[in-house]
């Protein structure tokens, strides 16, 4: 029985910090950073984390939220990241709630290594034969020290893949893993930043010696010769390494995929999946994709793209989200929203943000899933779902069925840019957002470009974001926000297991 990838999607945060700005700001300290000061890196907004980015990538892959459970629905969510917001509260479970996938499914966080992305994918493929489909998401919000080389080479982003029985759009031909305690960098418990060993050693003894072993074994298992590889996804920002590996293994020079260093940066455990999602956007039927993940060893997976690829494009894809971009040239803003400097937040920021777990639990569909109601008597859509229909001409009691709002078309009725209320990135934009088929809410906006001119009536779409940080207790609240819907779109596909 074959297994394969059935759908894929990606997500890249909108702000692209210009590396030249980082390099110039820090050149007084380390002039050598100028050598890395080219291109841009994707930078998560203050209200994004691995969970929210995974949700967006998954929506991109699934064609929205929903998907139900059972035979055609999603039976598992695996989330891979080394920057998960919760150490003990399953992060994949939040993703599943936000995606409104129901509760009869398996969820799992995969962490602890940059290899987590490929390990999650590989395990999902192994489990999917009979237990699928499984949604695998990799997401990373990198934490790096100011003026470190990593600050310049890393980036934030996510990808999601739906794997299951059958060939799908990319059939798994073979795979192999090497596990070896090669410590190119590490981050101990409660440490914020990576501790990194010399890159020349990492290249010569790590990449060049460990990776070829895994890829050779995977190609052997797949029965594919190296020269037949069309897309080689190797997620390192180190220059020329992927090319050197291709040469060493006998893969064609032009099989080496762009590591997205110029446009996104290296997104940790998510990066092999991001590169794979990017390759799938370009791949044609019959082509061979090799993806590897490196970290205390190496996973290598070999896929063959099928005819079904033509009908399975994501909502935006990595390319679509790369095109949805805002050049960020304000390094201070980046430092502030990444907690890399102490900013005067003002007394208004001091309000206690304790969240009642009981309140959240009984309202989880509403808060995490953006589930409202539809009145059976008059058809009116409303958020939140309530006991009494809001339609002034109806007022029926206990008449509402669940209705998901996250993917509905919406427009903006009124707005403000509020400089008074506390926001990590002022001014706070919010306003009345109205769903075209019914329902509305006074919602926070996110990803509004600084100085943007908003227009009443402009289209908006929902994004899953952090609402508040409870800094006293290490908790964070999630909810949905509206963003100006300017992202370039390709035609939505009908997802496997979609609504």
């Amino acid at each position: 029985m074959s297994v394969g990838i059935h759908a894929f999607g990606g997500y890249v945060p909108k702000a692209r910090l210009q590396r030249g700005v980082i390099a110039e700001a820090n050149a007084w300290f380390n002039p050598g950073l100028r050598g890395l000061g080219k291109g841009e890196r994707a930078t998560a907004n203050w209200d994004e984390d691995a969970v929210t980015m995974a949700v967006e990538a998954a929506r991109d892959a699934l064609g929205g939220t929903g998907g139900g459970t059972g035979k055609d629905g999603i039976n598992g969510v695996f989330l891979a990241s080394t920057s998960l917001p919760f150490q003990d509260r399953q992060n994949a479970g939040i993703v599943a709630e936000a995606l409104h996938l129901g509760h009869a499914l398996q969820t799992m966080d995969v962490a602890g290594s940059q290899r987590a992305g490929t390990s999650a994918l590989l395990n999902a493929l192994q489990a999917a034969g009979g237990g699928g489909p499984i949604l695998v998401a990799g997401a990373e919000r990198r934490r790096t020290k100011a003026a470190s080389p990593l600050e310049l080479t890393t980036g934030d982003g996510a990808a999601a893949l739906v794997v299951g029985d059958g060939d799908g759009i990319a059939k798994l031909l073979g795979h192999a893993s090497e596990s070896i305690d090669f410590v190119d960098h590490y981050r101990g418990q409660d440490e914020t930043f990576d501790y990194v060993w010399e890159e020349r050693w990492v290249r010569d003894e790590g990449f060049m010696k460990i990776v070829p072993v895994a890829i050779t074994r995977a190609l052997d298992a797949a029965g594919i010769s190296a020269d037949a590889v069309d897309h080689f996804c190797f997620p390192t920002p180190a220059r020329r390494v992927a090319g050197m590996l291709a040469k060493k293994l006998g893969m064609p020079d032009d099989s080496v995929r762009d590591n997205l260093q110029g446009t996104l940066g290296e997104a940790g455990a998510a990066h092999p999946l991001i590169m794979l999602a990017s390759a799938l956007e370009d791949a044609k039927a019959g082509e061979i994709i090799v993806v590897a993940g490196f970290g205390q060893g190496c996973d290598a997976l070999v896929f063959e793209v099928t005819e079904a690829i033509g009908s399975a494009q994501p909502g935006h894809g990595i390319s679509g989200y790369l095109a949805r971009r805002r050049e960020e040239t304000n390094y201070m803003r980046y430092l502030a929203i990444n907690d890399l400097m102490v900013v005067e937040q003002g007394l208004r920021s001091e309000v206690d943000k304790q969240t009642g777990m009981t309140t959240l639990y009984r309202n989880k569909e509403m808060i995490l899933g953006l589930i409202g109601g539809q009145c059976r008597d008059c058809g009116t859509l409303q958020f939140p779902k309530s006991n009494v229909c809001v339609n002034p001409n109806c007022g029926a009691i206990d008449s509402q069925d669940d209705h998901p709002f996250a993917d509905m078309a919406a427009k903006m009725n009124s707005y403000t840019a509020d400089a008074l209320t506390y926001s990590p990135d002022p001014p706070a934009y919010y306003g009345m957002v109205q769903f075209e088929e019914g329902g509305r809410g006074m919602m926070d906006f996110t990803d509004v470009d600084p100085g943007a001119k908003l227009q009443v009536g402009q289209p908006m779409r929902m994004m899953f974001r952090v609402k508040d940080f409870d800094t006293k207790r290490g908790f964070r609240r999630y909810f949905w926000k509206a963003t100006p819907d300017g992202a370039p779109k390709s035609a939505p596909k009908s997802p496997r297991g979609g609504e």
Partner: protein
Amino acid sequence: MATGIRDKVAILGMGCSKFGERWNDNAEDLMLEAFTEALGDAGIEKNRVEAAWFSTAIEEQHVGKSGIPLAMALRLPYIPVTRVENYCASGSEAFRGAVYAVASGACDIALALGVEKLKDTGYGGLPQRSRGALNDQYWSNMSAPGSFAQLASAYQTKHGVSRDDLKRAMAHISVKSHDNGAKNPKAHLQKAIDEDRVLNAPMIAEPLGLFDCCGVSDGSACAIVTTPEIAKSMGKTDLITVKALQLSVSNGTEVQHNSWDGSYFMTTRTASKKAYEEAGIKNPREDVSLIEVHDCFSVTELVTMEDLYISPEGGAIKDVMDGFYDADGKIPCQIDGGLKCFGHPIGASGLRMIYEMYLQMQGRAGERQRSDEPKFGLTHNLGGFPHQNVCSVVIVGQEGA
């Protein structure tokens, strides 16, 4: 069939503390200041007050919950004291409670007293606080100015008004209120300003600049009410009576149903219509002498002129720019400076508005006294947000008017 409150209750006495940044006073000091003036004005002893309604909105910043703080501050003789809170309409709510108590015959003399001590937060503007356990998890991160600012974009869109024209009318409103406040010795802000200063002020919540926003103040105001018969038996003449008491509360239609366009207050339209009916006012533009509205923000005052059916829909900008609502216009609005300049100690604000009507109708308003004798005075409070609010409309007037 209910006949309404018209002329059933008279104001026996009123008091109002100086509003402002009362750094060295507790809420109790402000309460006593207002109450002492009202008792003297009424010409009664404290023990004649049989029941009291006490309004505060952000009690956790000063006196705490319940009616006890009022009873203790004034040493009331173990009478009923009910604390009321209904956002910024709290003061009008206290008044409603006291007036209804007298009208019902349950007591002869009742007190409504409101107080707020807001300048103990460490920052300007309203205190930032929880909105409720579930609301905090999904309401937008809005401030008062940001929620009222929404009116501007919706109003502009509905009526095809340019931002500049709207901003200028808003500026006129604030300049007018500062002119009026400058003549009011109890006002928080007593300095006149000009239009340029308003238009060039720092932005608070687009398009509301600093001078489009009222400040928050410390202050207290109160009313002692009784029946017209009792007032007359005490030798009072030229009574000011209550003509209408209306309250309208959002049920979620604005924020959850797509029938509201965001440019006006459903509550104000509902409450004002009922209030005019209760007061027997057929044509408010002709019959109302003075109005004190909830000008928390200049744009609120602007749209309220239409919601009170005084300016035609879409016509408020013209009326404002024509000076219709200036102190020497047809219907002065905020002749005491309004929330904008008299100040906005939330629990006291509704009573402060009635206090001004009471002074104006008795010819006791000093430098800001209206020369035409006012017949009907309308006061209006909004609490909450345009998309979800409480609106009170009170009409007082000369007995028999």
